[in-house]
């Protein structure tokens, strides 16, 4: 089980992020989660939305540089140590975590998005520990 995340290349210049988010809003792309990574020159805006293939197409037509990456979405309970336990499971299975970010979904609680080097192995390891990763549709 995995989720499609769209990554958008954003130049580190005034107004570029606003331009991208405005574009997303004006094309009725419903965002569930986002995260931004940046260096001095550029950033990557990563988003989770409802119909990622269509959203990606719209963004590309709008001139944005994008790529789709499959990431894992793992539910996380609201108590101390729950993130640590997820990461421990992955670490024990020798799964490398590239990056991670969290979001809250109104009806389903909190989720961690995990970009790992091996989705299948990570999902299996988490399932073994009783953590069930979800599909795109489960988030909406």
């Amino acid at each position, binding site marked *: 089980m995995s989720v499609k995340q769209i990554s958008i290349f954003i*130049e580190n210049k005034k107004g570029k992020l606003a331009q991208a988010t405005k574009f997303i809003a004006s094309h009725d792309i419903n965002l569930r989660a986002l995260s931004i990574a940046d260096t001095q*020159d*550029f950033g*990557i805006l990563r988003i989770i939305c409802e119909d990622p293939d269509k959203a990606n197409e719209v963004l590309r037509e709008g*001139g944005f540089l*994008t790529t789709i990456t499959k990431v894992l979405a793992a539910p996380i309970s609201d108590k101390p140590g729950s993130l640590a336990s997820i990461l421990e499971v992955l670490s024990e299975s020798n799964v490398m975590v590239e990056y991670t970010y969290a979001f809250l979904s109104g009806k389903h609680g909190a989720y961690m998005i995990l970009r790992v080097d091996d989705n299948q192995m990570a999902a299996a390891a988490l399932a073994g520990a009783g953590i069930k990763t979800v599909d795109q549709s489960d988030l909406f």
Partner: protein
Amino acid sequence: MANYFQPEIECASLEEMRAIQNEKLVKQVKHVYENVEYYRNLMDEKGVKPEDIQSIDDLHKLPFLTKADLRDAYPYGLLGADLKDCVRIHSTSGTTGRRVVAFYTQNDIDMWDDCCARAITAAGGTNEDVCQVAYGYGLFTGGFGLNGGSQKVGCLTLPMSSGNTERQIQFMQDLHSTIICCTPSYAAYMGETVKEMGLKPEDLDLKAGIFGAEPWTEEMRRDIEKSLGIKAYDIYGLTESTGPGVAFECEEQTGMHINEDHFLAEIIDPETGEVLPEGAKGELVFTNLDKEGFPLLRYRTRDICILSRKKCSCGRTLIKMAKPMGRSDDMMIIRGVNVFPSQIETVLLKEGYTSNYLIEVDRVNNTDTLDVSVELAPEQFTDTMKDLAAKEKALANAMKIMLGVNPKVHLVAPKTITRSEGKAVRVIDRRKLHD
């Protein structure tokens, strides 16, 4: 198999070549002094008389001609023959506002045809070949130059001129063209069109291509060779000297043999004008040894290159010039190192980037800075920061190796570097060094 058109010249010993050059130079200097007032004045200013030029060793005593001289002398100031003896005019495009008009006598045309015939023969052309000339015909020298050489070799010549690409390829198929002559960018476009038309290189009879009139890279050569199923040969020339055929490539593909019985080449320091030894990088200067209509002596081409007399496996002894590395007027001096935009472009193409880039030079705390912005292609974008950072670093390293200067590379989104009609703005130099 000896692919020579005039073996007695192309394979002459150094002594034989020098004897030809000495005799022609002495005669040409005298002729120019007596007939071209503009150059006579330059020689007088420098205190040089025709008698001072006894051999090519005295060449350095003569004054240079530059593009500015050509502009000042426009249109007839450097004419070397009576207009009634001239049979043709060619001209540069004048995109930089400096149109050059060159005059040719029938002897000049014959000499030029010989030069192009040497190039076509070196590419394997014989009277059994069908040679398709897809350079433009007109004031531009490309079409007529290769056309003349092709006929001289005895090839069945197709004067297609440029454009109408599908028809070009149709003719290629129907009339079994074996040699194609055009600009490298047009050759690349033809290669794409062949593919789009659902054809394969094997469906064509082409074996060789002679490409010039604009800078191109080794990567481009390999692409063209693959897409058209040919061996691609470089050819060099300039309207000021004649046109294509001043120098041409042989099967070794390691530089171009200069037709030095007609065009005497020197390499000079572009700053001081001092003549540099063989193997040194500098500005290429040509002296027309026997041209009548437009006999330029010591004309500064502004092309930066290297000359070499290293023995060539093709058997030709004609001196070789490397592919020009840039123009002296494009040269930037960054932290004391000569840097050309073309070097940066070469790295970008080699590393798989587009040639849309912007070079920004500045001086911060008395140190020159070099920033290169490069457009990222959609397939090069990855969602991890470390991959993108690694790309930037790899590109900066490749540039450092090529340039000898450490640049800062910035990856930018596609189509964010401003495009311009015609000549692209590639360099912004913000250093205030001249006031």
